């Protein structure tokens, strides 16, 4: 044991009867030597104490008695929910080691009394989020308040690295380093495929040490399989059928976490579990991001104390908090990625030396294949990488206003500082000038934005925010997490409002009327009234209820996992069905093989189908839903140049569908350079303009750059008159200021994040090498079926608008008249029964439909 590191940290470990791991000692030594770095170790292996005791060892030992030491360390956590637990963990050694340090919290939840206290004096270590840190930096006395800062720790850096919150943190770090060049920075990260990149981004432009904590943590991945599977997989359909088995698994374990991929799914599963086991009321709980803070706190506490048998949750419980009693983790539906699966697995056996176990519960037949593939990918340690965004201008624009509030800035100085942040290290002068002009008068041409200004240089050349109203609005909007306008859900009480339950998005509630029921916070609720951005509800007892759908991002299947799936299918095609999962799906794959073919590593399977809905093309590149969307738009656009045609596009993680109401000669077209990478960027951009994607992506950018303001809390109704949808803003910008760089950014982000252009290019190159296996099918195959019933669709058209309107109006006329086309509600009922395809309703000789055997479906509109 070396003299330098021994003492404090070793002493504390010894008192607890713990033996430090080598990686912990390595971090202690590095911090003692003033080094920065990134520590990577699996969840629950003791990362927190590696850096925290290092910090205390170096900075806390000379704390004088009396008032606790002034601010010396910042602990950044990605989730508010983690802050309180982190603070408790940091507090633990302080008392036992007799160090005169105080621990404080600063998040969006911090009350005003505590804020005021911190306004006078900050604690020795402050636990906070990237957003709250930026907000602290806008204080006029920020530099003085942070004068004693010596060390900054970023917890769960992998969660921030790849998104704009991470960029916001990079900018804050650049400022803090400006003030404190010797600042020691450490990141803590879970498993990532590209750790050196994570290190570089965090410490840019400096360097540091990468410490890998190799703790042998036993990991078990298994899956819960149904006895039989349906041959026509329908996303989400198999799900609840697995209920009895899930109940049995939960029954056998003391405490379990049941992870779902969406909040709606969590609500449904919680309700189903309660229905199956009413005696579990009070023993099982629900946890997701839209529930009220108090509800979530109660659940988290119950988990820690081991009072709960099971918690149904979403990614809201992915991170951090130590729930030591958790024995089992169940993953409902696709894990989507290897890193995510490992992260969730780590929630069980969350202590050094204990076994982590995750059980996959497929929600449709194809996910059974994914379960097999995931086990393979984990065994081979194929873990996804995450890349930091490149110079997002919306975050920069927000930062400029923040820094103008923080006592003002001089452009030349600030540019130097901003370029210290990795994401802006190559920020072009032109973009910088544009961003300055944008916050000053909206754009480069003064005439384009009369009466507008957010930031203005004063006589001495210091850029400041002159309007208090603008300042207030900006402070309230800091951050890069974008959600739809959401409404608070509260119980209705005669004397006013009752307890708050959480929040739902405006779009969901717009579809409900008073008296309608919906499932929320694990309760069946009846809508009473909607008033002042609040939904008042009563308990309900009916059975039929809607489940809110939150517009959370739908994660794509990672390349690593997708490749593993294709390998499983390829093996199946060669007649090899290894493992229980693959043997189970054998009948499904045999139907796929008999009706069409199985995709494999060297072929590209395409299926062409003509139905009453129109002409379908199904294609299975297995590249994840984002790439499929890009690919589908590209194919639709290239096809549209050959003939005027309108497409409806559906994608999932396995493939894509293009559906046209008029005939398309797919067999003729597929061979002819449709997959070419020539002019790729041009063609993808063109397809983007023809569709709706950029418009949707603009929503986030508009909100971050301050174009859309989500409103003052409790504002009067008239405030609503000043809200407009980002879609409208997008149209106005496109029409009147088409050179606006935020529009460019929307495009770039769609290309990079939504369509994953690089992955799209690689996919195209791969597809060109593969042999096209084109099958004319007579009915939807097992692989096609989930696409056919996918409701969320994009559209792309090269027809003249007037022609499209004319055709649709004519179809309505026909539907209303005798013997015409009947709109069909997808093929769901027909295939769900696994019956032969429903036949076209037979017509009488005069062409009128027979009265009795009317096709089910919505009544045609007049």
């Amino acid at each position, binding site marked *: 044991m070396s003299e330098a590191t021994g003492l404090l940290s070793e002493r504390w470990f010894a008192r607890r009867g713990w033996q430090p791991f080598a990686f912990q000692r390595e971090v202690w030594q590095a911090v003692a030597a003033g080094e920065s770095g990134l520590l990577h170790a699996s969840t629950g292996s003791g990362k927190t104490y590696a850096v925290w005791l290092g910090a205390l060892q170096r900075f806390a030992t000379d704390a004088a008695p009396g008032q606790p030491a002034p601010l010396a360390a910042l602990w950044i956590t990605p989730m508010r929910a983690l802050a309180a637990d982190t603070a408790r963990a940091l507090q633990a050694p302080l008392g036992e080691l007799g160090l005169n340090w105080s621990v404080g919290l600063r998040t969006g939840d911090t009350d005003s009394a505590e804020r005021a206290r911190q306004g006078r004096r900050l604690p020795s270590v402050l636990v906070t989020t990237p957003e709250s840190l930026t907000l602290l930096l806008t204080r006029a006395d920020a530099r003085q308040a942070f004068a004693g800062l010596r060390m900054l720790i970023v917890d769960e850096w992998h969660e921030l690295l790849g998104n704009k919150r991470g960029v916001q943190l990079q900018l804050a770090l650049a400022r803090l380093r400006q003030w404190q060049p010797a600042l020691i920075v450490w990141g803590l990260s879970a498993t990532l495929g590209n750790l050196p990149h994570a290190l570089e981004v965090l410490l840019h432009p400096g360097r540091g040490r990468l410490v890998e904590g190799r703790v042998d943590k036993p990991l078990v991945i298994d899956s819960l399989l149904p006895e039989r599977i349906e041959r026509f997989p329908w996303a989400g359909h198999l799900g609840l059928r697995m209920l009895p088995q899930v109940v049995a698994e939960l029954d056998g374990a003391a405490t379990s976490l049941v992870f779902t991929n969406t909040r709606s799914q969590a609500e449904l599963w919680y309700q189903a579990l309660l229905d199956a086991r009413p005696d579990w009321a009070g023993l099982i709980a629900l946890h997701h991001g839209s529930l009220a803070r108090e509800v979530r706190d109660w659940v988290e506490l119950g988990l820690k104390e081991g009072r709960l048998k099971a918690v149904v949750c979403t990614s809201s419980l992915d991170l951090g908090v130590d729930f030591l009693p958790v024995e089992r983790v169940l993953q409902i539906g696709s894990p989507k990625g290897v890193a995510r699966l490992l992260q969730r697995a780590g929630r069980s056996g969350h202590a050094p030396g204990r076994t982590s176990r995750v059980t996959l519960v497929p929600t449709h037949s194809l996910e059974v294949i994914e379960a097999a593939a995931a086990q393979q990918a984990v065994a081979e340690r194929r873990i996804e990488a995450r890349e930091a965004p490149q110079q997002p201008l919306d975050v920069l624009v927000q930062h400029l206003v923040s820094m103008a509030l923080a006592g003002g800035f001089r452009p030349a100085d600030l540019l130097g500082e901003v370029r210290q942040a990795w994401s802006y290290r190559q920020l072009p002068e032109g973009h910088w000038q544009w961003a300055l002009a944008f916050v000053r008068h909206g754009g480069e041409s003064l005439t*384009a934005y009369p009466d507008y200004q957010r930031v203005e240089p004063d006589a001495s050349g210091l850029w400041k925010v002159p309007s208090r109203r603008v300042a207030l609005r900006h402070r309230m909007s800091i951050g890069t997490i974008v959600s739809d306008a959401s409404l608070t859900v509260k119980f209705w009480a005669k004397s006013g409002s009752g307890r708050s339950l959480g929040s739902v998005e405006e779009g969901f509630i717009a579809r409900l009327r008073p008296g309608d029921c919906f499932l929320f916070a694990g309760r069946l609720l009846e809508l009473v009234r909607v008033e002042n951005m609040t939904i008042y509800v009563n308990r309900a007892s009916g059975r039929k209820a809607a489940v809110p759908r939150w517009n959370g991002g739908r994660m794509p299947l990672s390349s690593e996992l997708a490749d593993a799936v294709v390998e499983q299918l390829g093996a199946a095609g060669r007649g090899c069905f290894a493992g229980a999962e693959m043997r189970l799906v054998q009948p499904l794959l045999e139907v796929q093989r008999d009706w069409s073919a199985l995709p494999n590593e060297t072929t590209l399977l395409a299926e062409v189908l003509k139905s009453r809905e129109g002409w379908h093309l199904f294609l299975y590149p297995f590249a994840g839903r984002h790439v499929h969307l890009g690919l589908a738009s590209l194919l639709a656009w290239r096809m549209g140049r050959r003939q005027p045609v309108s497409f409806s596009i559906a994608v999932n993680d396995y493939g894509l569908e293009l559906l046209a109401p008029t005939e398309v000669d797919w067999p003729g077209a597929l061979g002819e350079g449709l997959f070419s990478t020539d002019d790729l960027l041009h063609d993808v951009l063109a397809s983007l303009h023809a569709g709706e994607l950029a418009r949707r992506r603009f929503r986030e950018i508009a909100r971050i750059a301050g174009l859309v303001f989500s409103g003052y809390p409790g504002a009067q109704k008239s405030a609503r008159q000043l809200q407009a949808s980002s879609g*409208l803003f997008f149209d106005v910008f496109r029409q009147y200021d088409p050179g606006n760089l935020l529009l460019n950014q929307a495009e770039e982000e769609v290309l990079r994040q939504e369509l994953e252009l690089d992955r799209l290019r690689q996919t195209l190159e791969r597809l060109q090498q593969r042999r096209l296996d084109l099958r004319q099918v007579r009915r939807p195959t097992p692989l096609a079926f989930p696409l056919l019933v996918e409701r969320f669709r994009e559209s792309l058209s090269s027809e003249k608008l*007037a022609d499209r309107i004319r055709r649709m109006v004519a179809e309505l006329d026909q539907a209303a008249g005798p013997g015409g086309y009947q709109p069909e509600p997808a093929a769901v009922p027909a295939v769900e029964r696994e019956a032969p395809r429903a036949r076209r309703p037979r017509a009488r000789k005069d062409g009128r439909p027979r009265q009795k055997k009317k096709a089910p479906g919505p009544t045609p509109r007049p």
Partner: protein
Amino acid sequence: MTAHLAIDLCTTELWLLADKALYWPQQQALLVADIHFGKAAAYRRLGQPVPSGTTETNLARLDALLARYPARRLIFLGDFLHAPESHAPSTLARLAAWRSRHAGLRLTLIRGNHDRRAGDPPAGLGIEVHSEPLLLGPFALQHEPAPHPTHHVLAGHLHPAHRLRGRGRQSLRLPCFCIGERVSLLPAFGDFTGTAEVDAGPGRRLFLVGDGEIWPL
């Protein structure tokens, strides 16, 4: 091209125009709802950058309508100005210049919910301002679509649009006129405005506006 479509409402001939306005030949009156002048300016005053140009476009569209139809009177069915902040010098200057080009035109505004907050337009624009309803012939001209005991209501406020669905899961959302038995709605004329979806029903006919044409459903 069907740039306008004549319909018969309360035994009166009305022309539904593809540019989201209504022409009443007998009165030589042009009716326009929800133009929301100064909306972009109001955002700019609040620190949200919105490019200018929407006012010019709206005025140019009015010019085109006035050139094509022999209107002596232009009636705004409410929401003429968007917000108090819409009384911006640049917006008002444009409106004044436009007014001077149409000095002989009689202008009438039925106050809408936005006008009540924004305040009446400057007197210099020479606009007669009425509270709803303004009775004219068989019609009650209003902003909000509340039924009138004796007259058929022509109103705006809702910004109606309809989603047209077709084979191959195609759909298109288009602004529309919504002609009912007691209340009929005009689409929002303003360039920088949103829409709300409506469906046809018994006693309610829709006329969609798209690509410079008008499409009866």
